[in-house]
C-alpha cells in the first residue's frame, strides 16, 4: 500500500477524505469505478484537476444504478450542470451521501431534492404522482394514485399549504426508522 499512487496529490486525497465519508482506500477504489465507465475519457492523472465529465448514459449504466427507477433524478441532483453529467467530484459526493455513514439530515435533504421533479423546492401533487408511478411501475389506477397523494399530503403537510416543504419532509423522515437503511447504496 503506502503512498505509491500517482493519481491524486496527498493534499487532494486529504481533502476528499475530509469532505466525504470515505477512507483513502475507498476513494481510490471509487476512482477506479469511475474510470472503468470510460477509460478513454478519464485520465490517470488528476493532480492537475482536469475537467472531465462523464455523460449521464454512462453513469446510468452502472450496475448499482441501472435498475433504480430514480437514477435519472439522482444523477441530476448530484451533477454540477443539473443534467446528469457527472465529474469525479460529483461522483464521490453522490456515493458519499448514499453511503451508510451519512447522517439522516443530509440524506433527507438529498432525498427531498431527488423527489422534487420540477425543482421548485416543494413536493407538490405532480411530484408525488410521478414518484408513486415510478415506485409502482405505473400499475396503480388514476383513482388510487390520487387517493394516495391526498393521504400523503394530509399526513405530512404541517403548514397546510397543500404541498410538502423541506421541513415537512424532514419531520416525516425522523419518524421513519427504515430510511437510513433504504437510502443506501453500497459500492
Amino acid at each position, binding site marked *: 500500500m503506502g503512498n505509491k499512487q500517482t493519481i491524486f496529490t496527498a493534499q487532494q486525497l486529504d481533502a476528499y477524505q475530509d*469532505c466525504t465519508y470515505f477512507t483513502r482506500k475507498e476513494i481510490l477504489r471509487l476512482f477506479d469505478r469511475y474510470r472503468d465507465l470510460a477509460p478513454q475519457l478519464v485520465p490517470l492523472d488528476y493532480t492537475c484537476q482536469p475537467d472531465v465529465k462523464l455523460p449521464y448514459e454512462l453513469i446510468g449504466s452502472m450496475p448499482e444504478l441501472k435498475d433504480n427507477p430514480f437514477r435519472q433524478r439522482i444523477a441530476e441532483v448530484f*451533477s454540477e450542470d443539473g443534467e446528469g453529467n457527472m465529474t469525479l467530484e460529483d461522483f464521490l459526493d453522490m456515493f458519499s451521501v448514499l453511503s451508510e455513514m451519512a447522517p439522516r*439530515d443530509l440524506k433527507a435533504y438529498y432525498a427531498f431534492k431527488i423527489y422534487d421533479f420540477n*425543482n421548485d423546492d416543494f413536493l407538490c401533487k405532480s411530484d408525488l404522482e410521478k414518484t408513486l408511478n415510478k*415506485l409502482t*411501475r405505473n400499475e396503480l389506477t388514476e383513482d388510487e394514485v390520487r387517493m*394516495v397523494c391526498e393521504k400523503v399530503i394530509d*399526513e405530512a403537510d404541517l403548514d397546510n399549504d397543500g404541498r410538502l416543504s*423541506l421541513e415537512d419532509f424532514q419531520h416525516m423522515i425522523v*419518524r421513519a426508522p427504515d430510511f437510513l437503511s433504504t437510502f443506501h447504496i453500497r459500492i
Partner: protein
Amino acid sequence: MARSPQRQSSREEYDYTEEYGSHSDQQSLRLRRVPSRVSNQNPPQFDWSSPHEEEDEEGSSGPPRDLRATPLPMALKRAMRQIQQMRVPVVSSRESWKRKKAKSLRKLKESGRGFLSFFSLWSKTLQKIGGNFGGGVQSYFLFLRFLVVLNFVSFLLIAGFVLIPSIVFRSVGSKLINSTGPEACMEYDPNPQGLVVFYNYFLDLLSGTGFMEYSYLFYGYYNNTMVEDVNFSYNIPLAYLLTAVFYFIFCLICIIVRMGTAARVVVATGVSTVGNYSMIAFTSWDYGCLGDRATKLKQKNIHYGLQVDLEEESMKKRAATLTLLQKIVLYSLRVSMCVLSLGLIIAAFFGIFKATEFSQKNSLQGGILGLFFEYLPSIVITAGNFVVPLLCDQIALIERYAPSNTVIVALLRSVFLRLVSLGVLLFTLWGQITCDGAENTGDCKLCQYNHLIYQCWETRVGQEMYKLTLFDFLINIAVLILVEFPRRMVVDNWSNKLTQWVGRQEFVVSANVLGLVYGQTVVWTGALFCPLLPLINTLKFILLFYFKKITLFYNCRPALKTFRSTTSTFFFLVVLLFGWGLGTVVIIYSVAEIRPSMGCGPFSVFPSMWSIVPMSFQKLSITSQEFLFFIGSQSFSIPLFALSCVVMCYFVALASVYGKSVALLRAQLKLEGRDKQFLVKQIEMLSQSQHILN
C-alpha cells in the same frame, strides 16, 4: 458572526453557488441550500468577513464533521476547508494539540470500526439477501446470526467453567460427601451388554444412548468431586449449577439489550399507522436493490402494500357502517372460529401426550422400531406444528379480520401451539419421572423418583432434548431436499395451469422464525441436562443458515405480504422471551423440587440440586456470609425495591413529558402555518386595495 434565528434562516442561499454554477438558467442550476437543521448543531452560517470563534470551542471535531455533513458541492466544501485550514494558526498550541488528538482519535475509531466489521459474520451475504428479498427476510437471517453468536458464547461459558474443569480434574479430587442410600437407587449401567450390531452405533448417535450416553454430552458423566489444593479449590457441582443459572441470566441480558435497541426505534417513531402512506411513498424504495428481477419484485411489493392499505381503509369504513345484525353475525362467527382453533390445538396436545407416554413405555425396544418409538414425540410435535397452523390460516381467512391483524392472529396461534406443545412433552416426562407428583407412592417410594424406568432421569431428559434438536434439524433438511427443490424443478420445467397456480415456494418469514424460537427453547430446557447442547445448536444453526440461504436463492420467490422489518425484530425477540420463560420454569423446578438421581451425576448425594448452595455457603468466611445475608434480608431489599420504583416512575414521567411536548410542538407548527396563510391573505387584500386606490 451573525447568527440569525432559526426560523428565519430556513432558506438561505450561498451566493457563490451562482458564481460557481455559471449557468444562467435557474432551472438546471443546482440550488444547494443549507437546511434549517443540519445535525444537532447550528449550521456553519459562513460569513467570510468575520472570524469564527464559535467553531474554536467545538474543538477539532467541529470543522471536519460539519464539512462532510453540509449539503454542498464538493468544490465548495474544499474551498471552505481551505479557508478553515488557513485560519487554524490563530489558535493556541494547546488548542491545536487537542484538535490533533481528537482528529487522530476519530481516525482510530473509524479504522477500528472497519476492522470490527471484518469480524461480523456473513455481513456481505446479509446485505445481498436484503437487496434481493427485502428487509423482512433479512431480519430472519439477522435473528439467526444473533442466535448463533449467543449459543457460541454460552458454549464458551459452559466449557470454561464446567467442561474443562471436569476433564482436567476427572481423576483428581475427592467426593464431597460419601453416598448413602438404598442400593437399588444407586444402580446405573449405561453401557450395553454383549455384542452390539454395527448399525447400533448409528442409532445411538441419533438417540444419544449407548456409547453416547456415558460421555461429557450428558449430565450423568459429570462427577461429584471437589478439588482442594493449597490456594485453589474448585467445587464441580457448585460450578455446574451456578454456570447453568448464569447462562440463563446471560441470555436474558443479551435479549433485553437487543430488544432495547429495537424498542427505542419503535417507541420513538410511534406505533401508529399514521404516517403510513408517506412512509411508503418516500422510504420504502430500497436504493440498494440490485437486479432487474429484484426491482420488479420490489415494485410489485410496494404496489401490493399500497393496495392493502387502501383496502384496509375501505374495510374500516365499511365496518363502521355495519348494521347491528351483521355485527352480531360477524362476532359470533369469530368466536366460533376461535373455539374451533383452540379445539384443534388441544387435540394436538392430547396427541403429543399420548405419544410421549407410549414412547416412554416402549423405549427399551431395539433396532429401527425402537428408534421410531423413541422419536415418536418429536414426530408428533412436528406433524402438529405443520398441520395445525395451516388449518388456523384457513380459519383466519374465514374470520375476515383486516389483513395486518390476520397475520398477527395466525402468528400468535402458531407461537402458542409450538411452545405449549413442548411444554406438554415436558409435563408428560415430569409425570413419569415423579409418578405424577406423588413422590412417596408406588415406584417412586424408594428413591423419590421412578428409578425403575429412569436410572438416571436427568440424562433421559437431556436425551429427549437432544433428540428434539436433531430431529428438528433433519426435518428442515428433508423438507428442503424433498419438497422445495423438486417443487422448483416442477414449476420451472413443466408449465401448465396447476403449476402456475401453485408457483414457486414463498419464503415465509414468520414460520421460519418460529422454528428458530422453538429450537432455541429446546436448547434452553435441555442445557442443564446436556451441557454440550449449546455447541450442537451452534453447529446446527450455522448449517441451517447456509441451507436456508441456498434454498432462498434457488427455490424461493419473495413473499408479497411483507413484515415491517423494524417492528418484526422486536416481535421475534418478544417471542424468544416466551421460550426463555419456559426454559426458566423447567430449570427452576428441576433444581428445586425433584430429587437428583442417586446413581449418576454431580448431585447424586444431595436431596435437591439447590442444596449444594447452602452447603458451600457455610464454608465461606463469616464476613461474606453476613454480607450476603444482609443483601438477602428485608432491610436491604425493601429500600432497593422502593428506589427502583422511584427510578422507574421518573423514566415513565420523562417519556410522557417528551411525548406531550412533541404533540404540543406539532400543534404549534400547524398553528403557525395557519397564521402564515392568514397573513399572506391579508397582504394580498392590502395590495389589491392599494392597487385599486392607485
